[in-house]
């Protein structure tokens, strides 16, 4: 049976093309500082409950916050990477609300003078580059974590996360599709990872995304009523939620109803969202300037110092790799996917100046080994120096490619010295021509049929003989050399037969 909703949705499907989706994002990012934002507790993730806590981050009476300067530096670095304006005198405000994960009864955040205002991030849109404007970026503290045990009547609170530094980036409603949202988030993630201020993992919660979405008829200039979608824990979830919410809003409008201004919660297992609270229930957070923290004065010198430390970002590297090293755009993208991979590439070519060879090795051998072992390229265990010496050995024909792969597998997870490894395992190529000729002659003597085939014009037979020689040398001979010598020996053999 087809329900009423389904009819609406089908109708909405037809009407989809008449609508435009308008999306703005609120992105929370946990900063990778060693200590919390307002106390000296460790920010280490995944420890036993309530080990990294103190009077400040558990809201004990009489405790007062002290700002971690590193948080300000990280926020400025992100602000600069987003081309934003750094507020010269920035202040913290209190956001008051009751919830058990919030031990002080308020969150220290920024409302009136956020550290960064304005800015933009350039993404590759459907029709070329597009700037997504940033509304603001502010600093705040994370809350604790509630642990609900279904079997018990109680809930537990883990305050390890309480006071972990966050930045919240609020965009303007400049995105028009899930694709653009993905592109924005990927670009943002890359910039932040290159800065080294966060690992931006959605699954672990070090990056959290709320989607503000509205729809309007194409050509309309007025924005429609937006909803805010929370609890999005994966890129796939975000894409599905955007599709679902777009469809839901269009269906509402097409059936003559209105979109309510509300906060919705995405249920990834059910693939749908439900209303958390409407605008009427919106909380009055009674924001006011945090009296325990004096304003933070950010000098131009300070900004300059941070600016100087700014790394070359992925987009810039992609362009440079193409022009400087002649590497294709596709390959450049692959090489720069993580800053660790890019750094490995750049450092390897310092020791072994064959960019294409290095690039190939990283994209083929390294990526496939990473995939095989279920690792990502943020954790490369071998050092660029070792990789360079491995590639140098191939170049100097000390070892051949087959052996090189074997050696690389060995040093991949251990950072052993490939030269030592080759020596220890006696893997270097047989350089002695006399020795190879000996083996070739032996193989020719043992494979009369193949020799006859070769004389009969079956050139394939030569390949077989080469293979036999390689086998006899345990792959340690230079295949090209072997090829040459087999040819020479065969000709000599034929002549002697005649």
């Amino acid at each position, binding site marked *: 049976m087809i329900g009423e909703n389904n009819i609406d949705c089908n109708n909405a499907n037809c009407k989809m093309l008449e609508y435009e989706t308008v999306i703005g994002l609120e992105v929370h990012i946990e900063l990778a500082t060693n200590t919390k934002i307002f106390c000296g507790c460790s920010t280490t993730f995944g420890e036993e409950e309530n080990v990294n806590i103190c009077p400040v981050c*558990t809201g004990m009476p*009489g405790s007062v916050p002290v700002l971690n300067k590193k948080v300000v530096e990280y926020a400025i670095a992100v602000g600069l990477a987003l081309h934003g304006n750094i507020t010269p005198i920035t202040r913290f405000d209190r956001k008051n609300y009751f919830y058990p994960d919030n*031990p002080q009864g308020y969150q220290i955040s920024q409302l009136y003078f956020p550290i960064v205002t304005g800015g933009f991030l350039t993404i590759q849109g459907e029709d070329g580059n597009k700037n997504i404007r940033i509304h603001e970026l502010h600093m705040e503290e994370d809350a604790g974590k509630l642990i609900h045990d279904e079997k018990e009547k109680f809930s537990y609170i883990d305050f390890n996360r309480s006071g972990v530094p966050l930045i919240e980036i609020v965009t303007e409603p400049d995105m028009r599709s899930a694709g653009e949202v993905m592109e924005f988030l990927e670009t943002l993630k890359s910039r932040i990872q290159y800065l080294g201020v966060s690992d931006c993992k959605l699954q672990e919660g070090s990056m959290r995304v709320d989607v503000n979405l509205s729809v309007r008829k194409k050509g309309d200039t007025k924005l429609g009523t937006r909803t805010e979608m929370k609890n999005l824990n994966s890129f796939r979830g975000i894409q599905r939620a955007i599709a679902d919410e777009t469809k839901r809003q269009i269906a509402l409008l097409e059936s003559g109803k209105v979109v309510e201004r509300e906060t919705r919660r995405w249920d990834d297992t059910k693939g749908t969202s439900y209303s958390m609270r409407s605008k009427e229930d919106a909380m009055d957070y009674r924001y006011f300037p945090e009296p325990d923290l004096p304003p933070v004065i950010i000098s131009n010198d300070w900004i300059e110092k941070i600016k100087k430390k700014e790394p070359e970002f992925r987009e810039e590297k992609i362009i440079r790799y193409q022009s400087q090293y002649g590497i294709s755009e596709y390959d450049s993208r692959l090489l720069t996917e993580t800053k660790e991979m890019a750094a490995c590439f750049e450092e390897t070519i310092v020791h072994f100046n064959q960019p294409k060879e290095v690039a190939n090795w990283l994209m083929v051998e390294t990526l496939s080994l990473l995939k095989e072992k279920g690792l990502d390229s943020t954790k490369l265990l071998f050092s660029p120096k070792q990789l360079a010496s491995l590639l140098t050995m191939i170049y100097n024909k000390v070892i051949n490619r087959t052996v090189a792969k074997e050696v690389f597998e060995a040093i991949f997870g251990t950072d052993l010295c490939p030269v030592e490894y080759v020596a220890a395992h006696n893997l270097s190529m047989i350089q002695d021509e006399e020795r190879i000729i000996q083996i070739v002659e032996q193989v020719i003597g043992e494979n009369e049929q193949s020799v006859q085939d070769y004389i009969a014009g079956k050139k394939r037979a030569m390949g077989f003989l080469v293979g036999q020689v390689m086998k006899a040398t345990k792959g340690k001979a230079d295949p090209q050399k072997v090829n040459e010598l087999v040819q020479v020996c065969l000709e000599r053999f034929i002549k002697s037969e005649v």
Partner: protein
Amino acid sequence: MTALELGKKIRNGELTVRQVVEQTYEKIAMLDKELQSFLSLREKEEVLLEADEIQEKINSKQLIHSLAGVPIAIKDNICTKGITTTCASKMLEHFIPMYDATVIDNIKKAGMIIIGKTNMDEFAMGSTTKHSAFQITKNPNNTEFCVGGSSGGSAAAVASQMVPLSLGSDTGGSIRQPSAFCGIVGMKASYGLVSRNGLIAYASSMDQIGPMATNVSDCAALLEVIASYDSHDSTSVKVTDTQYTKSLINDVKGMKIGLLQYKQDNPLDESIQCAINQAKENLKNLGATVTTVTIPFTAKQVLSVYYVLACAEASSNLERYDGVVYGFRSDKDSSLSEMYKKTRTQGFGSEVKRRIMLGSFVLSASQYEHYYKKALRIREYICSEVSRLWNDYDVLLLPTTSVSGVPIKEKMVHTTKEYEMDCYTVLANLTKLPAISIPYGNDENGLPIGIQLMGNYLQEHTLFQVAYTLEKNMEKEKRSGI
């Protein structure tokens, strides 16, 4: 005997720390049943053992501080590790802090001996100490009369000489007002001079811990102990010279004193007006110039700004008392929101609830501009107007309280009547300036009167010099005889 004299006798070996502690407990046993100034006392045996340890350190010259071995009482909103710290509230009735406030660290380092925790208005909100959830402290000068507040317990403990020194906290006059009522010296130093780390917050932008003593010298000596830069308090300031006892100089020659008046309203009892006039004459006779200076705002305006800001901050500071992690929690609750409501309804007293409601109102989105923001702007205006006065004056003279001798039984017709009593003290809190109240005679009922001196930011030295000179040159009969 003053605290400094006591310290000297201990160092000379005329008295042992153990004897001093024994005597202190005897006095408390004798007097405090009536006065009700202590909320909790430390176990005597434990304190005696500590006394012996300190004695050894004094004997071996490890401890040479002038207040080593001297007992002190602590207001019950200052965190003491292992000792209940209740804020005179049911909410924190059984709360035992896991850390010491920075001032407590300082006091321990000086070798002073903490005897117990003193009564106060709940969460330091009030001017009577009648808003304590546990007991009403009486004025040692006349037990029918109000001790003042909120540091009423600390004032009574010193005025009755159960202990020579105590710590109070002052957000709108909570040290100076009870000091005036009890006839002792109490000081609120410049905001930031004394660490707030471990002081249970009422209004963070104005709260300051301060010394209470029977005389100016002891007061200076205690401020010397507690004033310190503290990296744990972001509002703490670095000050190089905190040797306040060096400024105990009997000389005001050439000093310029401003007799401060509000624009229109200056509510003041006649006896207090008399005391002010006499202080003025005295200062003149001692070679200072005293001129009246009128500031361009009314007492009522200053009070309004203070109460809007203090209540706003309080409403937020007290949100942490929600029954979740520590403190009182109501029982048999069916839901989280019911637990919050019941816990806070049952845990807080009426004055605290009144200020939380006021504060929540002025911070609400629809009222923020009308109240909180406006009050912030006027505070800035007040600060700039007052700061201009330092071009012409070294110290300002003004009353501490508008009234003296309030009977305990007297019911305030309006709550605002109680608030009005703070009209001369809140000015120093709003402007973050140092101010000291010293006893200056008695009213017609024989109850003490306090006068107030206010100084420029971090000019505690000047303030102590003037206060000390006034104290030394007071006519004998003016010295409050307890």
